[in-house]
């Protein structure tokens, strides 16, 4: 994964910089980077209805059949790389992958074909940049609430990695962090768990052309501070 590579390079850079520092003792620094990995649930959402209309007489549409589509719920895997800009503000890069099923119901066929429900599973990737604001300073064994928002790219990929569609997504929500370990020394300066809840709005891609698609997401993660 790209994110892990980026992280490894960053850690390597920090280690090298530390090795070249003067021998004089320095106060231990606060963590600067957090990596979290987690999974959760991404809710389903309607993709809208669409009629397969022909142009009829007297400018009235003549319906061949109609459809109603939705994107099913899925279990996303999430990776976040957080850059701590201070005690409260965090710049966040988030990547996620899920495998929802697209479902389309077909009804009202003009030649009497029975209603059918059609599905197809797709891989959905997203990568977004965002800002997280801690609402309280982190202390060991103390819950830290936060709010976060971001925007980025979402792509739907079919089997064989053929890109089906791509679009823009916006994310807003919040959550809680619970530090389990905090220490001033050592490469890993902390670890904990976090829970996120967000509303994800997709304005194109698999979303219906006539509007945005809204999905609720909830994830649980473990994080490590460096």
């Amino acid at each position, binding site marked *: 994964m790209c994110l892990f590579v980026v992280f490894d390079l960053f850690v390597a850079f920090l280690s090298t910089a530390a090795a070249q520092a003067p021998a004089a003792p320095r106060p231990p620094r606060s963590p600067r980077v957090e990596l979290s990995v987690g999974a959760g649930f991404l809710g389903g959402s309607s993709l809208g209805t669409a009629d397969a209309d022909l142009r009829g007489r007297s400018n009235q549409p003549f319906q*061949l059949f109609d459809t109603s589509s939705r994107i099913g719920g899925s279990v996303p895997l999430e990776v976040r790389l957080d850059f701590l800009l201070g005690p409260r503000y965090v710049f966040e890069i988030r990547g996620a992958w899920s495998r929802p099923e697209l479902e389309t119901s077909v009804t009202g066929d003009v030649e009497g074909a029975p209603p059918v429900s059609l599905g197809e599973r797709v891989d959905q990737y997203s990568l977004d940049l965002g800002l997280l604001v801690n609402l309280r300073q982190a202390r060991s064994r103390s819950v830290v609430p936060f709010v976060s928002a971001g925007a980025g790219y979402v792509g739907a990929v079919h*089997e064989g990695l053929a890109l089906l569609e791509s679009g823009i997504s916006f994310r807003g929500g919040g959550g809680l962090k619970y530090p389990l370990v905090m220490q001033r020394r050592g490469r890993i300066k902390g670890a904990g768990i976090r829970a996120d809840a967000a509303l994800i709005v997709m304005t194109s891609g698999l979303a219906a052309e006539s509007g945005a698609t809204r999905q609720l997401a909830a994830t649980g993660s473990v994080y490590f501070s460096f």
Partner: protein
Amino acid sequence: MPRLLLVAIVCAWTAPALAYSHFGTGVGTARVHWDDTPVRWFATERGVPGVTASVFQTTIARAFATWQDVPTASIEFAFAGFTAAEPFDEDGLSAIGFQDHPEMDRVLGATTFLYDDETGELIEADIFFNSIFEWSTAAGGDPDRFDVESVAVHEIGHFLGLGHSAIGETELRPEGGRRVLGSGAVMFPISLGRGSIVDRVLEADDIAGVSDLYPDGNFENSTGGVHGRVRRGSAPAKGAHVIVFNPRTGDLIGGFALGDDGGFQILGLTPGPYVVRVEPLDDADIDSFFALDDVDIDFLVTYYPRLVAAPSGGVGDSFDVTVRPK
């Protein structure tokens, strides 16, 4: 020296005639097409009641512009002047005009081609409008007359090398012929009737057709396709009409299972998931579309049980649609 062939296609009032297929006219492995653009066309100097020669020419120019303005196609046209030559004369001029054909009492217009049967390159194409009918160029149409521009857009589709589309629904008329209930393409072979001007505007199927024949810029990389077979038991359902529908864009685009194994391929699709519907070719005379004598129309309308993906710049996995007999 390749032979030159003269072929005619008509736009019918209640019953289509002669043969054609969609997405380019097959000539062996070549497609009928223009190699050199802009394609020069002439208008005859003859008018009919309600439509002067001058108004006819400007209306035809508008119909050419409708095809020329398709952003994903690269064909261009140029009006070369008025002519005393007649449509259907083999004179190297592509002439368009009115002619009186009382013997063709259900034919609004027709297009003839002169083309190289080895390369498919068009040398000449003529269009006639049957002056036994009453014609109009009124902006909003005339309920008692046929619209010149609508029929012109259809005939110019043939002039480009497109055949007929089967996206439409009809019913039999007691007095004979068919009545169109709905049409999903300008290239549907039967007119919606007097007063209708809807065929002035191209549909997704028409746009996919001309873009496939004259692709421009990034068309092939930015669109995708689907392919598969239509089967009835272990046999191909030859000539079955396959429609794909994109629920996101509302586009309907059609094709035919013309392969020996019932194979079909539909290109020029906006990438995304599609509903696939297969129906027998029973809404117009089969020879409106192609000259096959083993077309299977004895099966029920069938949906492929999954959504089918048209990937960007490619063609998705092949799939079989199995239809059941009526």
